[in-house]
């Protein structure tokens, strides 16, 4: 995504603003953009959610099917997360197999959900070693205005929370909602020179030196982290970012939980 050159002047401007606690769109440095959420957007999916984080627009659909478990986890369902950065969403996205950016994004979203044990995958075992539920989280980015990590994570969490397993049509008893046990919230902070900005917009993201995504659960515990970009963080910066992620996460979690 480095194909667009951002002028140094713009970068200096954003940095000067940030040095006085301000941002281009008027937000505070630790203030995420407005999250709007529409559940059950797609009737053909077992669960779905469309999330707008500012102007970033993401649609997640959950499909479920029945298949074999992995040999080393015979008693647990299977979770598979994919991202398509379709060229509709940005002039910098290209059709074709997923590029490293999309793969990293899918894996970071997946880790937040998997490691927080949001969905009890053990309860998605039908017959040990033979039949388990397979959960496909398909992330479709529709409009890209920065910080896909958080937007995709929110949409995935909300979609999973609205998912009903189609057991009846498969002769597996009554339909049931996914067994949701934890509520991971991803919060991404960008660093421009020595300033830290939560939920970077596209303009901010383009000029960022480093990025840190922290996923915390309802206890404030850390479930996943991912640093990105070529800049560095000090240990103190990381500690501060984690605190911010816990604080912001607490504010966003109820939005995802409401149904």
């Amino acid at each position, binding site marked *: 995504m480095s194909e667009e050159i951002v002028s140094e002047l713009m970068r200096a401007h954003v940095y000067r603003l940030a040095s006085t606690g301000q941002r281009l769109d008027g937000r505070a440095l630790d203030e995420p953009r407005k999250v709007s959420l529409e559940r059950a957007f797609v009737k053909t999916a077992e669960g779905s959610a*469309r999330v707008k984080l500012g102007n970033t627009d993401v649609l997640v659909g959950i499909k479920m099917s029945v298949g074999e478990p992995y040999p080393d986890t015979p008693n647990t369902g299977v979770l598979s997360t994919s991202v398509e950065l379709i060229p509709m969403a940005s002039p910098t996205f290209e059709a074709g197999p997923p590029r490293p950016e999309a793969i990293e994004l899918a894996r970071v979203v997946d880790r937040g959900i998997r490691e927080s044990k949001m969905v009890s995958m053990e309860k998605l075992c039908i017959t040990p070693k033979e039949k388990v539920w397979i959960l496909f989280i398909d992330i479709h980015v529709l409009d890209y205005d920065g910080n896909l990590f958080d937007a995709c994570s929110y949409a995935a969490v909300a979609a999973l929370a609205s998912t009903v397993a189609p057991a009846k049509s498969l002769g597996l008893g009554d339909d049931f909602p996914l067994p949701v046990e934890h509520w991971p919230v991803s919060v991404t902070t960008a660093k421009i020179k020595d300033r830290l900005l939560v939920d970077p917009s596209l303009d901010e993201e383009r000029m960022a030196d480093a990025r840190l995504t922290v996923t915390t659960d309802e206890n404030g515990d850390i479930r996943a982290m991912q640093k990105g970009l070529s800049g560095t963080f000090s240990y103190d910066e990381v500690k501060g970012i984690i605190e911010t992620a816990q604080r912001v996460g607490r504010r966003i979690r109820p939005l995802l939980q409401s149904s």
Partner: protein
Amino acid sequence: MEDIEHFAKAMKLIDADGRRLDGRKFNELRPIRIEAGVLRRADGSAYMEWGGNKVLAAVYGPREAHPRHLQDPARALVQCRYNMAPFSVTDRKRPGPDRRSVEISKVISEAFSSVVFAEQFPRTSVDIFIEVLQADAGTRCAGLTAASVALADAGVPMRDLVASCASGKIDGVVCLDLNKDEDNFGDADCPTAVVPRTGEIVLLQMDGHLTSDEFEKAMDLSIDAARRIYDLQRDALRRRYSVTLEDILKESPPVPSPMQPEGRLPSEDDFGPEGI
């Protein structure tokens, strides 16, 4: 209909009163809602609900064609990519193009090539992206119809909008705008796209079984429907730009012209009474 055989012919698709499963008459369209200008990054966009279909279309360009060896020194390339989201169908579709979507992308690209003034933009490409978010038969017609609005929203010079609708045959009766069950268990499907003002046919496909007479009945239905859809397309564009005007009057600092008004998440309430 391809790839699916009719294994349940016993299913009755039209009742004694000539009503279809969803209550429509033979010449009735499903409810249609169109909204223009729904995405921020794209140069133009449109969202469409058509029966159970939910389709987004976006347009970028005219922009420099990549890779360079594909550039046409005489005209713009008009390139469509039709894609179905994995969750848009009952059985999850693997991401990426399959043979069906490659074919549909090709015929839609060709359909728009005849209406875009491509000669005005040599060496460029006009890129049309259609994403099917929820599918219920007729997605190529919905995508094409939405893409036409997106092209207009992007300000791409065109002879006219293109409007598209399929007709087909179910239980031996020629009907307009088949839904998914009708398509799966019906006898024929014939997607058509026309330039409504001139009647030119820019897309035409058919599979199934039609006599010449039945084909003409189907075409008559489709062409008539295209005219109604054309009105909905123009309404959507009119609404889009009037809303923008109101916004400009409401907000004090005038939005600079090259900037897009903010895209909005379409919700049920956004759609006016133009739905049929």
